[in-house]
């Protein structure tokens, strides 16, 4: 069950197994060409774009269902804007016809194709149908739109024409489709008078053209026919084995609403007729149908006048169509997949409901972002922008995968979490639907971040309403930490950048050595004055080291005092006036009062404010005190 992708900027030489430009096909017809790898069970996603192609299906008919799915929201693609998925016979701008009188897509004896969400946009006025399959079976058209703008369209040809093979039922399904063709026939289903044929048309809107049922047993449920110039429904070659059942349908302003072969080959119940020239031709009447009253549809009043708008041609509030039908055989939802507004289905294809609050699809960010996580990290959570609120681990279609460099992708089974819960592999939680709408937490499996790969790419996608998100995690420690960087700069500066004038030299000379070495540093001289007049400057020294201090004993006029033969001592007191240590001073130029002493860690191990007084003793009673010298010990 492979999945293929088609996008306008793809290439038909690609494998088609991937949604990127480098992998996807470019044409709608590639999947239907001879040798196509698409087989039963496969899915083909078609990206938004105008595919100007006339396709003849030559591929081998699949033995089981193949889904050809238009993806107008581009949720399956990256780098593609949402828009119509249009198979067209017009140029991309729709301003000139590229081809006419040939089908958009045709095939003979081709079964099991299901087309979804595709706009078939024809310019078909020639023979056969714009979408034309003959002798085929099990063809389905779901949520497709058919238009035809041929100026020669008033022919007997149909926009969608399906025929079954001789002796075989068609078993066709047309579900939730709209037809806006100017052909005489919007739909033509031709069979082989097989009573067991399950062909069904339901929840469809037909504007301007008829639905033809020729020699086929078929059912029509909950369809709306508006302004069909000839018939709403025309039965041809009806019989007991080509029996037509019409139920819950609405016919407004048609030429003839229902035209049968004879009253024994068809039936109609729970239908409403309004404004038709003829309601029934060779169709039996029914007591459950209604031929009085108005059409009961909103053709724009609510939107024009500021009421809660309903879809055009929908039953308006209190419409006679509302809850008019029977549930027997009826689809559970209407054309736009809305639940019926009443207890029973409406007559027609579109029920009454307010479009207020029906939000337009806003694509999520498709930007591929990159973050960095250290390889081998565990229990990592990341945040992704998915562009839609309300997604959960169990949202239909939502899936997550990762792939590491040059390795196959790996599924990440999603696990429901709340935003504050602890990490668990695959944990998925909405961050804040109100204040950070569209942002989700995803807990990465540890294996995704294991060492050994350059990067890992994570994709979350597949749910309705989001384009998904792609995020690449670079597996790197990111180089040195901040602390490592600071240390490296420090070491490098000191070791290799120490020439004069450099930062390293300054670091070594001015910062490192005084702090980390016990080598003496001469500081001063500080003039310490007699008579308690203080000192010339305070002393500011690094804690934890010993320092050499130069002093000069001066009188109160600043003249040096001779200390020859004198004993000079420095006494250091802390801020509490307690003597911490006493140092002997050595005269360096005694006649001028100059001396030096070394203050050691007895003092400098404890940062604080100290004072030192210098005593000059020349005899038993001849002591003179200088200073005090204020000392600040701190971590400079």
């Amino acid at each position, binding site marked *: 069950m492979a999945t293929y992708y088609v996008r306008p900027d793809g290439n038909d030489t690609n494998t088609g197994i991937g949604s990127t430009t480098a992998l996807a096909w470019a044409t709608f017809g590639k999947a239907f060409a001879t040798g196509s790898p698409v087989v039963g069970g496969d899915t083909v996603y078609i990206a938004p774009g105008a595919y100007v192609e006339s396709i003849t299906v030559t591929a081998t008919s699949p033995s089981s269902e193949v889904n050809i799915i238009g993806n107008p929201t581009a949720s399956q693609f990256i780098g593609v804007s949402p828009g119509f998925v249009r198979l067209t016979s017009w140029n991309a701008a729709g301003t000139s016809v590229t081809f006419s009188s040939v089908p958009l897509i045709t095939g003979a004896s081709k079964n099991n194709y299901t087309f979804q969400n595709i706009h078939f946009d024809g310019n078909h006025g020639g023979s056969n149908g714009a979408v034309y399959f003959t002798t085929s079976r099990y063809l389905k058209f779901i949520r497709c739109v058919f238009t035809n703008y041929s100026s020669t369209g008033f022919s007997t040809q149909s926009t969608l024409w399906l025929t079954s093979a001789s002796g075989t039922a068609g078993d066709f399904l047309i579900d939730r489709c709209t037809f806006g063709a100017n052909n005489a026939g919007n739909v033509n289903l031709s069979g082989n008078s097989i009573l067991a044929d399950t062909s069904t048309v339901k929840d469809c809107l037909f504007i301007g053209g008829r639905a033809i049922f020729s020699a086929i047993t078929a059912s029509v449920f909950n369809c709306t026919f508006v302004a069909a110039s000839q018939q709403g429904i025309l039965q041809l070659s009806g019989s007991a084995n080509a029996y037509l059942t019409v139920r819950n349908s609405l016919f407004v302003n048609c030429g003839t609403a229902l035209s049968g072969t004879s*009253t024994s080959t068809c039936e109609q119940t729970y239908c409403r007729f309004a404004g038709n020239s003829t309601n029934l031709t060779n169709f039996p009447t029914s007591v459950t149908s209604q031929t009085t009253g108005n059409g009961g549809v909103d053709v724009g009043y609510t939107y024009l006048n500021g009421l809660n708008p309903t879809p055009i041609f929908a039953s308006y509030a209190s419409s006679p169509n509302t809850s008019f039908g029977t549930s027997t055989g009826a689809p559970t939802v209407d054309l736009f997949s809305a639940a019926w507004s009443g207890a029973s289905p409406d007559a027609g294809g579109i029920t009454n409901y307010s479009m207020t609050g029906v939000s337009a699809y806003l694509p999520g960010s498709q930007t591929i972002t990159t973050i960095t996580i250290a390889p081998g990290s565990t229990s990592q959570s990341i945040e992704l922008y998915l562009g839609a609120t309300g997604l959960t681990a169990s949202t239909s279609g939502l899936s997550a995968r990762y792939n590491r460099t040059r390795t196959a992708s790996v599924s990440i089974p999603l696990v429901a979490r709340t935003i504050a819960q602890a990490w668990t592999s695959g944990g998925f939680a909405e961050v804040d639907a109100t204040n950070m709408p569209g942002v989700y937490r995803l807990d990465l499996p540890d294996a995704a971040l294991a060492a050994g790969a350059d990067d890992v790419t994570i994709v979350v996608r597949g749910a309705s309403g989001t384009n998904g998100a792609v995020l690449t995690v670079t597996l790197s420690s990111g180089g040195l930490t901040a602390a490592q960087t600071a240390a490296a700069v420090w070491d490098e500066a000191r070791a290799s950048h120490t020439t004069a004038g450099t930062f390293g030299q300054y670091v070594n000379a001015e910062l490192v050595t005084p702090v980390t070495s016990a080598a003496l540093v001469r500081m001063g001289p500080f003039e310490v004055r007699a008579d308690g007049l203080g000192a010339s400057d305070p002393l500011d020294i690094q804690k934890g080291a010993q320092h050499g201090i130069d002093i000069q004993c001066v009188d109160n006029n600043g003249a040096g005092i001779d200390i020859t033969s004198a004993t000079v001592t420095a006494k250091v007191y802390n801020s509490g006036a307690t003597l911490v240590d006493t140092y002997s001073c050595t005269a360096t130029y005694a006649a001028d009062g100059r001396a030096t002493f070394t203050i050691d860690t007895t003092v400098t191990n404890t940062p604080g404010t100290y004072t030192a007084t210098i005593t000059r003793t020349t005899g038993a009673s001849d002591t003179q005190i200088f200073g005090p010298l204020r000392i600040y010990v701190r971590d400079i």
Partner: protein
Amino acid sequence: MNLQNFRIEKVAPPSTDWLVFGDIEDDNGNVLGTFGVDGTSVNIWWVQQDETFQASIVQQFAVVMANQIMSGDAE
């Protein structure tokens, strides 16, 4: 208005006429009228209609005729 037992028959050549058969009924199945046991001749009926009605029908024919002429199916 409903038409039951409705059919049209082409009159054998060299006539170019068509005959219309059927019952004209109301929505309750009551027969309001018929096209006659031998059907109603289109050609005879046509010339009995007033010119305004004929003009409106001819204008509808004209579009079909133009398309047939352009497609080569008629001249």
